[in-house]
């Protein structure tokens, strides 16, 4: 071990200034939005950078009725949660066994299937919006007075989102499973473990960081998904947080107070930030592996 080199004071100060400038760039929008969400003056547009008095009334307002639509924050959050958890859970559940096969076994069609998945991965979600919209719109049932249209339901949005999330989950999980040494499975097999036992008792527990990362990325995608929900959904009771937030900015939101908007933005960001901080260690190692792969 070599001893820690002391940094000369002049260089220390110079580097500290650089670090602080970067920190201010990062923090400026965040501090602004936090300040605005606590603004007690309840004006439409703030004319000072920081609020003169603080209160939580913006949060109160947003929890009850964030937009002009008659929906509460909790209804919007429930819909977003349904999409986020559903998409994340099913893409990991369905993806992991396929990822394992792609990672460990060579068989005919392997190359073809992998290239097909990779090609789909390259496509942005919006590139399949038109056919999914048209196809899902064909699943309509009428029961008495009510009509169920798969396209205009959260289930339909979830299906459309899984269409892009699943190939990503397979690819991401395969990248991690490749790094698990083969000897582990081989040793277990020599001890008499079956194919399924190896998968469930050895591979899955070892793949936990990758499962967490893939789930989290799916969750993040679902929690803030905008383009598909905005195109598919028509009933305000099914709207999501992202759609409400979009309704609160821009030219059609001239009667929305910016402190309501700020409170809404922070409440959407909070769960994601919390999950990230909770699973930071696993996520960072998983992300790094995924990126280096």
């Amino acid at each position: 071990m070599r001893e820690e080199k002391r940094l000369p004071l002049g260089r220390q100060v110079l580097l500290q200034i650089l670090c602080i400038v970067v920190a201010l760039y990062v923090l400026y929008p965040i501090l602004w939005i936090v300040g605005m969400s606590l603004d007690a003056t309840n004006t439409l547009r703030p004319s000072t950078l920081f609020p003169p008095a603080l209160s939580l009334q913006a949060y109160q307002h947003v929890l009850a009725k964030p937009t002009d639509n008659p929906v509460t924050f909790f209804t919007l959050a429930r819909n977003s949660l349904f999409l986020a958890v559903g998409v994340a859970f099913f893409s990991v559940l369905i993806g992991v066994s396929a990822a394992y096969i792609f990672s460990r076994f060579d068989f005919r069609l392997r190359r073809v299937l992998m290239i097909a998945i990779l090609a789909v991965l390259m496509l942005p979600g919006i590139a399949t919006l038109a056919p999914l919209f048209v196809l899902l719109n064909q699943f309509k049932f009428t029961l008495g007075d009510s009509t169920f249209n798969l396209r205009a339901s959260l289930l339909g949005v979830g299906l459309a989102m899984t269409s892009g999330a699943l190939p990503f989950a397979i690819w991401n999980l395969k990248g991690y499973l490749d790094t698990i040494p083969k000897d582990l499975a081989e040793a277990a097999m020599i001890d008499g473990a079956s194919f399924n036992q190896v998968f469930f008792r050895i591979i899955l527990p070892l793949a936990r960081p990758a499962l967490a990362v893939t789930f989290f990325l799916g969750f993040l995608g679902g929690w803030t998904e905008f383009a598909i929900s905005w195109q598919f959904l028509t009933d305000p009771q099914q709207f999501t947080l992202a759609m409400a937030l979009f309704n609160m900015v821009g030219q059609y939101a001239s009667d929305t107070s910016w402190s309501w908007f700020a409170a809404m933005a922070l409440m959407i960001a909070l769960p994601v930030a919390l999950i990230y901080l909770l699973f930071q260690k696993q996520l960072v190692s998983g992300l790094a592996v995924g990126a280096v792969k």
Partner: protein
Amino acid sequence: MTNSAISETASTALAGQVSEAESSWWARSLRTRTILLYLLPAFLVMSFITFYPLFYQLWMSTTDFGLANLRGTVAPNSVGLQNYIDILNNGLAAKLPNFDFVYLLGFNLWWTFSNVIIHVAMGVLIAVLLNTKGLWLKGMYRAIYVLPIILPTLVIATVWRNMFDPTNGAIALGLGGIGRLFNIPPETFQLHWLDQLQPPIPGIPLPLSYFALLIVNIWLGWPFMTIVATAALQSIPPDLYEAADMDGATPAQQFWQITVPMIRPAMVPATVYGIVTTFNLFNLIYFISAGGPLRKTEIMVTTAYRLVNEQNLYGMAAAFCVLIFFILLALTLLTNRITRATESYDA
């Protein structure tokens, strides 16, 4: 399961290690069946919701599929390659004013590369900065710098949209506050970031909203590169630098001769990932500039979305997305070729 069955499963699953005696038809077919069983759920789901829609899209792209065909009772007319022709020779401009395919593609590429180059350069430099031995408050800076990654892009985009407000936005207020110290009236800083038509730099046909988007996306993009670069930096053996020190190499020489080649294997995939993400960065552009002014900051995916969402031109949108696929394919092959051609050593 009997003992022999277990050993059979075990040995067949060990691909490539199957002994002569056990590689019977039954053993091989058991392996095949297990593989199929594990692949089946993903294969079924993807067939229905991914691959079938993609083939359907190919067919749709040769029709005039529109709102009238949505109920499924009226079949759309086949128009051959007319949709593709309309896109490529700007016939689409009749429906989307100011649509110009060459400008759109050029802007999309310029947008991608100008962003990613800055992300990588800033990401690496800040990673090196934070890796300096003896720097105070490292932990605090790391905690702050990770914030752009943990906040959802959608939220960031809406927040910055309001920050660029000419009179009440945080940019105008902040610059105005600094200006007051020097007796400059705040009106000087009330820029129309998102809808000023005149290019801010004469001779370069990029609107002010491009620079606004650039400011946001730099904010958003460099921390990921810093994380990747930091992980790579920490795996460089310190003796390399010690040896270089003894040989009298300057810090700049050490950076280019040791740091850059050593973190390159980690940075290349991160850069390719950054290129694809930035090329398709829907939320930022749709929420902040909305492609404006006059479609000058529109990218491919936001245009495709407008065709579906505002124009209900599903057939045209399908053709547009098929084009996006081929452009992305070319872009990926090109970046692969470039990164391979510039490979300095075998990783």
